[in-house]
């Protein structure tokens, strides 16, 4: 199972549309969730529509929350998405085996066993979550809460019985301005990591879409065994833009 979780507080303003990027992710089997994070009293109504659209295109969900709710929301969304992904797969099986469209279509006494299977698979299937963090100027005061949420997520994932890993990226990139920086490669333990988000750029752009494309590429490279990342980074850019 592959998930991309975008944490942002504004609209993208450079490069490919993040909605298009999310649709790409979905085609690659990656579910995209989006959290819009606000400080008390702050309104990001202009970005809300985009946030919702990205999640819809990526087959995931979106929420606008304040920094205090961030940890719980990240944890809940990841978990809920795992269940939904498994459920979709199980529903396909149900159609073949029972001719039932979904779990809901089964009589209640037959649901118990199916849901036990869903719970079991949700716990034991390998899971990879890539977190993509917007670190543009308005996000800076919120990054402490973001780091806490990432640590909290790792703690939750560690209690799963299946293999669970996260990777962390942030954008904008200090080098070229429309990519993203990989802060953490796939890992299941960040106990030794002092600061997660480092090397933040001073640029004012918000290249959400291009950054998402990079992360999709990162997932894909990994599927084929990691080789020559440096070379293909440029190619995916040409492919899409």
């Amino acid at each position: 199972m592959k998930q991309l979780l975008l944490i942002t507080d504004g609209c993208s303003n450079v490069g490919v549309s993040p909605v298009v990027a999310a649709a790409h992710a979905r085609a690659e089997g990656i579910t995209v969730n989006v959290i819009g994070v606000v400080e008390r009293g702050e309104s990001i109504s202009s970005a809300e529509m985009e946030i919702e659209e990205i999640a819809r295109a990526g087959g995931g969900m979106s929420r606008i929350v304040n920094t205090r709710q961030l940890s719980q929301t990240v944890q809940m969304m990841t978990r809920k998405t795992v269940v939904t992904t498994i459920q979709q797969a199980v529903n396909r099986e149900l159609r073949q085996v029972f001719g039932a469209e979904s779990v809901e279509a089964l009589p209640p006494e037959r649901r118990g066993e199916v849901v036990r299977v869903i719970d079991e698979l949700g716990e034991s299937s390998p899971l990879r979550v890539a977190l993509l963090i917007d670190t543009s100027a308005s996000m800076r005061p919120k990054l402490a809460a973001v780091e806490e949420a990432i640590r909290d997520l790792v703690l939750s994932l560690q209690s799963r019985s299946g293999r669970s890993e996260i990777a962390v990226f942030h954008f904008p990139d200090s080098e070229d301005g429309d990519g993203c920086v990989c802060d953490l490669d796939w890992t299941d333990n960040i106990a030794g990591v002092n600061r997660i988000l480092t090397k933040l750029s001073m640029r004012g752009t918000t290249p959400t879409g291009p950054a998402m494309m990079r992360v999709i590429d990162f997932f894909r490279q990994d599927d084929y065994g990691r080789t020559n990342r440096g070379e293909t980074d440029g190619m995916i850019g040409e492919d899409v833009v």
Partner: protein
Amino acid sequence: MKTSSELRLAPGAIVTGKWKRGRYRVERLLGEGANGQVYLVEHGRRLYAMKVGGDAVDLQSEINALRALASRRRAEPFLLAVDDFVHEDGAEYPFYIMRYVRGSALHEYLLREGADWFPLVGYNLLVKLAELHEAGFAFGDLKRENVLVGEFGRVELVDYGGATAFGKGVRQFTELYDRGYWNAGSRTAEAAYDLFSFAVLCLHLFEGRRLLQLSQTLLPQNRSPAELIRLTDGHPQLKPFSGWLRQALRGEFATAREAAAAWQRIMYGGGVKAVRKRRSSSGWAAGLFACTMIALAAAIAWLMTEGVLPSGLS
């Protein structure tokens, strides 16, 4: 299926099960949890609690936990029926019917009936947790609102949305009560996870303000069981249990049975002193009793002479 937060069943509404055709009349909303709403309903002239979920899979996970528990318990069944209904808006909602437990949330009960009930209610709650653990599940989301106390301190756990098979990741929890939040261990469902929450629950009851202050002011990396342990011996109700609480916060009890037995020893071992001062001089109390009896006798004599009471009474 829709999310249940959109649903509002009005008093008097009739819910008919799609599969088993049971009819339930809604009396009122009892409460709302993360996975759905609980209504008081009438069926065959008896009252039941009905939980309506937004998501059939989430609700079924909860039902699976309740089933596992029911198969272990000899007492009257808690879970009575499982079905779906079609709302007038066309959406379908899964629901289950359970025994209705008359009672109030733990903190409200102690406020009304007095903190003298705390040691007994605490013990009863530990026994409930032990029963659930022995069925192979942790409760997960233990907090004040999920503990219902009825007559004479009888305890019932409500909202099994967090119930998780041992060894799995806890399905649902509340940060303040969560072992992971306090950097005191994993989120794996096990006895010690619930016992940690139980200890925080005790702190919440008597040191609520200080507890909330801790969670709001401490930096995430500084949250620790040691900080919580500091709250355990300030309040007179907690003081006898401070050693017990320390053990629970450090995860030192292997099972809820063991923890309950330790709690019981404190309860009856003279560790608990009534907070009200005991009357030390029984002499004047006896005197007071004698005076009352004389006054009573005088009153009866007067009433009899006035003919208010039938003379046959004497």
